[in-house]
């Protein structure tokens, strides 16, 4: 941690790095376009017909975002945008590549999904631009702390509202709105709730940190300060029980504990958090068959009735069959996972099988790099609200990445969440573009040169004023 950008207050004069960003963006567009060509050559031996259009589309999105960042957030982090474009572009190629498999692209399964995903990506980029254009300073969000709370809670319970909520594959996390289509409100809630946590904790952190009794070397919080953590715990448990959404509840609770710890600098909060999540996990795993089943499959991925290979086993076979270097784009068999899952929840299986261990590690490292830039932004932010918000957004992104990738790879039980940018799903890609925009806004503020100190009068030469 020796980089100069770690200091809370930069001394000014940091290069804006916009040209670096432009150069990276060229690669971020070029790599998916070449991957697109690769799929076409592998599948039909010719360049795919839509290649020019696809390349132009992606290039255009990247170009516009770059120009807006250059104009309205000139000191923003130069790496986040190229990584987001690259991941989004790769995701589009992977979905388009899976669209080439007739068995998982039947009309009953919704047909080809890449065109819609491109559309949603464009909407996501539009939201990204809107955030940068209209949110001149992230601190404005602080004013909406409690409104954020209400909005977040509303978004979280939306899938439970009869009429619009839908249950898919045992999890009730979808909402269908007439005219718009279906979306996952939790994807948006995660951003709004980070805003609420940041605003709330900024105000309450001293009370939470200082008013506590020391018992056995741990600082125990007062009962009234314990209230909010129990409320959040209760809400995440309810999400788990009523929506059977393991991922989202883990995400919310985890982010809250992390932000609480950062705000108060009290290790005891982590201990509390871990105890409460362990209790919740045991409770739910023993009472909910859906979650229990997931845990079983996680522990024994290759156990199934003879002849009925489970989805989990198919995913493990995909990764194993990829080996070190993979089968090459377009030449794997992740379609054996069946349904639309290979395009959404299990998109990493296609990365693993077709790009191999090498490609999978590269993609994981892209996420790691993005997360690292997020933490850097949090460290560099000058105001506590900005620090907490950047921290919260990055933690959301990091936890979601871990929960999805860990679930697909078998590090933890599988939960129904989408890999940010890579996986098929409109809500996810839109929400994540907004998340990146917020981080860029905070990092622009953080890295902006401090205003030049007011010139000291003493240093000036005495001037004679003649009337």
């Amino acid at each position, binding site marked *: 941690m020796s980089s100069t950008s770690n200091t809370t207050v930069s001394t000014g004069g940091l290069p804006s790095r916009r040209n670096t960003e432009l150069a990276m963006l060229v690669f971020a567009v070029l790599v998916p376009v070449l991957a697109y060509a690769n799929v076409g050559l592998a599948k039909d031996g010719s360049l795919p017909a839509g290649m020019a259009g696809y390349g132009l589309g992606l290039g255009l999105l990247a170009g516009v975002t770059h120009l807006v960042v250059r104009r309205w957030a000139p000191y923003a982090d130069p790496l986040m945008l190229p990584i987001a474009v690259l991941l989004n572009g790769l995701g589009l190629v992977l979905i388009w590549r899976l669209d080439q498999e007739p068995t998982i692209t039947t009309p009953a399964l919704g047909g080809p999904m890449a065109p819609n995903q491109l559309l949603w990506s464009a909407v996501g980029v539009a939201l990204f631009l809107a955030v940068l254009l209209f949110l001149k300073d992230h601190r404005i969000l602080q004013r909406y702390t409690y409104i954020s709370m209400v909005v977040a809670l509303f978004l979280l319970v939306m899938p439970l509202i009869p009429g619009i909520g839908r249950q898919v594959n045992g999890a009730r996390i979808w909402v269908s709105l007439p005219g718009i289509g279906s979306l996952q409100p939790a994807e948006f809630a995660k951003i709004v709730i980070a805003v609420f946590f940041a605003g709330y904790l900024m105000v309450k952190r001293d009370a939470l940190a200082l008013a506590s009794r020391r018992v056995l070397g741990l600082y125990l919080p007062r009962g009234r300060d314990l209230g909010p953590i129990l409320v959040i715990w209760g809400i995440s448990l309810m999400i788990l029980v009523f929506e059977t959404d393991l991922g989202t509840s883990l995400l919310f609770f985890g982010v809250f504990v992390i932000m609480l710890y950062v705000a108060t600098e009290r290790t005891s909060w982590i201990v509390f958090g871990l105890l409460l999540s362990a209790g919740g996990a045991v409770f739910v795993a023993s009472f909910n068959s859906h979650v229990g089943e997931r845990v079983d499959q996680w522990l024994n991925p290759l156990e199934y009735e003879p002849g009925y290979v489970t989805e989990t086993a198919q995913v493990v076979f995909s990764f194993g069959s990829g080996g*070190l270097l993979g089968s090459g784009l377009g030449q794997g068999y992740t379609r054996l996972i069946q349904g639309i899952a290979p395009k959404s929840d299990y998109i990493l299986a296609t990365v693993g099988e077709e790009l191999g*261990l090498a490609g999978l590690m590269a993609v994981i490292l892209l996420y790691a790099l993005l997360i690292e830039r997020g933490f850097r932004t949090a460290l560099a932010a000058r105001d506590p609200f900005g620090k907490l918000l950047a921290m919260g957004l990055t933690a959301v992104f990091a936890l979601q990445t*871990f929960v999805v990738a860990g679930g697909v*790879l078998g590090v933890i039980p599988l939960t129904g969440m989408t890999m940010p940018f890579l996986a098929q799903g409109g809500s996810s890609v839109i929400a994540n573009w907004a998340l990146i925009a917020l981080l860029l806004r905070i990092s622009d503020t953080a890295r902006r040169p401090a205003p030049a100190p007011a010139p000291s009068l003493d240093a000036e030469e005495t001037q004679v004023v003649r009337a």
Partner: protein
Amino acid sequence: MNKPMRRVAVFCGLLIVALLARANWVQFVQADELQNHSDNRRVLIERFAHPRGDIIVDGEPITGSTETDDTDFRYKRTYTDGELWASVTGFSSQVYGSTMLEGVEDDFLTGDDDRLFFNNTIDMLTGEDQRGGNVVTTLNTAAQRAAVEGLGDARGAVAAIDPRTGAILALASTPSYDPSTIAGSNDGEAWNALLRENNPDDPTLNRALRATYPPGSTFKIVTAAAALENGVVDDVDTETDTPTPYDLPDTNGERVDNQLDGRCENATLRVALIDSCNTVFAALSDEVGNEEMIDTAESFGYNQGQDLQVPIRVEESVYPEDNRPQNAQAGFGQASNRATPLQMAMVAASVANNGSLMEPYMVDRLVAPNLNVVEQHEPEEMSRPMSRETAQQLQSAMESVVEEGPSGPAAAIDGVRVGGKTGTAQRGENNSENPYAWFISYAMLDDESPVAVAVVVEDAEVERNEISGSGLAAPIAHDVMQAVLDSAN
């Protein structure tokens, strides 16, 4: 706030490390096991992604590959004359695995064999698809056709070998089936119709190699060889000391009778073989003793467990350790000793080849797609069950069987020395079911025998008293030998 932030960042770093470690575990450490897992459909997809190599008989492929519309399996196996060759090729099915030569030589036919690595690498560099190698067999189309046509609708089997080399010339098992009908991915109905529980004929059973039968009187050749080799009888024309009827030792007067009693008392081996005297061979087997009988049977190829492979695994023919009465009855092939048709062909072949049993085989060579011969079979002696003198005495006795016995007219071939032995093996409790008709024989040309054959016919649709080796089995053996002799000229 920076200190806890750094800690959180380190924690997230650890999460990423966990992901990377797990990815390495699954995709590197476990990769091999997962890639070849029996439920990983990629294994099958890869198998049928390229045309298989062919199995070749007399220079002509008897198999082929055809492209299909199936999403998973691009190529399907075809067979030019499936029913004729099913006992040789077995099947290669997209669903039900592969058997017989298709199974044993699978790696070579798909091109996965290590010996094709160089060929595959060249193909990969020149952008060609992987190709499988060809399996060239020793079989003889005319002999196979004669065998299958001879068996007709009956259940039965024929095995014919070249005694000089051990090369298998015919290998028929009826009723047969067409492996083309179960080659695809959608052939469940045809498959179910072939299953033993739905089809008493059990067509996929290769009776020539995988079914064992009581050998009946054909086993008397083995007993005669044991008696001669062990000095119990001096030569085939010396009188034996064998009463008729023969009382089984260690029993309360259980007797062995003959169908044709006239000349059997104290008969010479030659007469005992011509008239098929059970009493003589029961007495000789008892005199030789169980241990020596086992030794002789094993030198003919019995009791080898799973070791006899041609390269298809051959079911074990057994001559077990047993008490005296059982051992005596085994001497005329009517006890717990059992044999495959191939085993009995090997018995005839070792007599014909002057006492030397050549290792049976049916794959002459493996040929890579670039026509390089990857493996060439060299004939090898498997054992010497008897001396040259014993073999020649048995030849003369077996030739007398054909000249003077009831099978004569059916088996004899003009201008060729033919030796044979009939057999009618009882089966069922107290002989309640129709017996098995056996015939083993060889033909001699210029003191060399180009063919030895064993035929077994299970209950054919004929009257019981017509079921005899000479009536049913001998004509088939004749046709097979004739076909081999004709194609040699």
